[in-house]
């Protein structure tokens, strides 16, 4: 029940009635609270309990002694350091590629009439809701040794030999950029649509060239939307599993793949948990920095639609 209605109802100032109203209100709030408990409990049990349990396990070394061994290993063993380096490299390159591709697209869509933009938006939303596995498979087919791209490249005489596109850094970057691009375009488009065009018109009336109006007025106003997309993509990259596993073909090892192999090949829960805890902390850290800089308003909701 809304506060305003309660207030008007409570102006009766009848002592007895007031108490009844308070009880009634409390019961009502209990009921409403009860409505969200099933969802909350399920999230607590399926996500919080195991992650808490695993974090606890990460504090014990292989011999079962309490200590930081599992974390020390992450900064000491060269193979882990290499995994982190690869992960950050891929994430950075994918983020940059997606900004370069996504910004012009979102800008174009934001300048089009709403109807036309809505139709073009289908081409962004459709891949967004297509299984990651399907899209990665498509790129495997397109980029493979005998695939479409290599056929064109050799056919046009640009390269003598087919280029190694799949099972390489480049393949991982292409696949992941494609999968994550909508996460940038959707929030960016929404924030660009919200920019008042009269501001640009005013700038131009006052003598700014279209280019100057764009860089001095439009671009700064689009930064919060851009930042939301960038942070989403970067964070999703860090924990990405399907695409790097298939496109990397074992040559590009990223963080999530390391976690998987630590569990399924070595059954080393302590080490895998330490990796998971650090991944979670880094992810939360990125999101926290974002919310400090730009406000937390609906980062998730913005990214969703």
């Amino acid at each position, binding site marked *: *029940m*809304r*506060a305003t209605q309660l207030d008007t109802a409570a102006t009766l100032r009848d002592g007895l009635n007031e108490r009844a109203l308070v009880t009634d209100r409390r019961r009502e*709030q209990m009921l*409403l*609270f009860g*409505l*969200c408990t099933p*969802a*909350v409990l*399920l*999230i607590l049990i*399926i*996500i919080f*309990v*195991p*992650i808490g*349990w*695993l974090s606890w396990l990460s504090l014990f070394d292989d011999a079962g002694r309490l200590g930081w061994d599992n974390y020390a290993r992450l900064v000491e063993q060269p193979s882990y350091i290499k995994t982190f380096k690869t992960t950050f490299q891929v994430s950075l390159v994918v983020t940059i590629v997606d900004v370069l591709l996504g910004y*012009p697209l979102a800008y*174009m869509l934001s*300048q089009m*009439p*709403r109807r036309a933009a809505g139709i*073009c938006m289908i*081409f962004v939303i*459709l*891949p967004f*809701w297509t*299984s*990651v*596995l*399907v*899209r990665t*498979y*498509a790129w*495997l*087919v*397109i980029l493979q040794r*005998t695939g*479409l791209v290599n*056929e064109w490249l050799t056919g046009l005489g640009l390269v003598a030999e087919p280029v190694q596109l799949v099972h390489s850094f480049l393949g991982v970057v292409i696949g992941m950029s*494609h999968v994550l*691009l*909508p996460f940038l375009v959707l929030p960016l488009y929404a924030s660009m649509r919200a920019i008042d*065009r009269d501001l640009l*018109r005013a700038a*131009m009336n006052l003598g700014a060239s*279209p280019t100057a109006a764009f860089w001095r007025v439009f671009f700064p106003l689009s930064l919060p939307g851009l930042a939301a997309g960038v942070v989403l993509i970067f964070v999703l990259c860090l*924990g990405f599993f*399907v695409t790097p596993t298939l496109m990397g073909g074992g040559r590009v090892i990223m963080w*999530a793949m390391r976690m*998987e192999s630590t*569990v399924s090949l070595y059954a080393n829960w302590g080490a895998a948990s330490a990796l*998971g805890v650090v*991944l*979670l902390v880094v*992810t939360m850290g990125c999101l926290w920095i974002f919310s400090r800089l730009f406000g937390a308003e609906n980062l*998730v909701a913005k990214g969703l*639609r």
Partner: protein
Amino acid sequence: MIGEPELPIPHSRRLWLYGIGALVLAFLMAPSLIIVPMSFSDSAFLQFPPPAWSLRWYHAYFGSVEWRDATMVSLKAALLTTLLATPLGTAAAYSLHAGQFRFVGAIQALLAIPLIVPVILIGIGAFFLYARLGINNTITGLVLAHTVLAVPLVAIPVLSGLKTYDMNQELVARSLGASRLRAFLAITLPQIRFSIVSGALFAFITSFDEAVVSFFISGGETATLTRRMFSALRDQIDPTIAAISTCLIILSAVLITLPQVLGRRRAR
């Protein structure tokens, strides 16, 4: 109604922008556009354009017991997830919208957690927990984990649907003697049903397309379609998967455009 005024920049000066935009859109659509014709190829090598057309790979898909079983598992899990996540997400959204108890903010943040925590961690965590509960490789376990992923995707559209709805209507119904449940079912529900339907569709697609959590907690008899595709792709590029992918692309396209089509008909 006057449309948005155009900026005083001629279209000809913006051709480069339209060019780049079109190229990026092509990049986004290319994989789907290439996989669909390839799935009708006659060849065992994935050539484009296909040398001859056939339904060979669709026969391979529907003729294989393993693929068929995996499809059934995925459909069953997605359906059950939808049936579970839709009421849970709707109830949570309603409670957050109407509630004024102390933890509204905290619970709202908690509901977003499944979207924020890296999926790989949710997968490994669920696998770890399920090993102790003995529900790895069961539909129950699969549905519970997928429901957790889907609840925020139901709650978000329902919450935004509720924001455009005037809750006083429900109060009127109640003051006229309807119970709270009756008021919700008769007055509120019909008006937010499009938000709920799109939330339910998101839940279905999320479960059906989910690959990472399923990778850890499904296997054997209850391997999902994505689980089987993932293992198959680790070995070789099987053209049967082009046929499966085409089916998945069409399913996603239909489910995503459905609310738009329904919404437009309502708007008329």
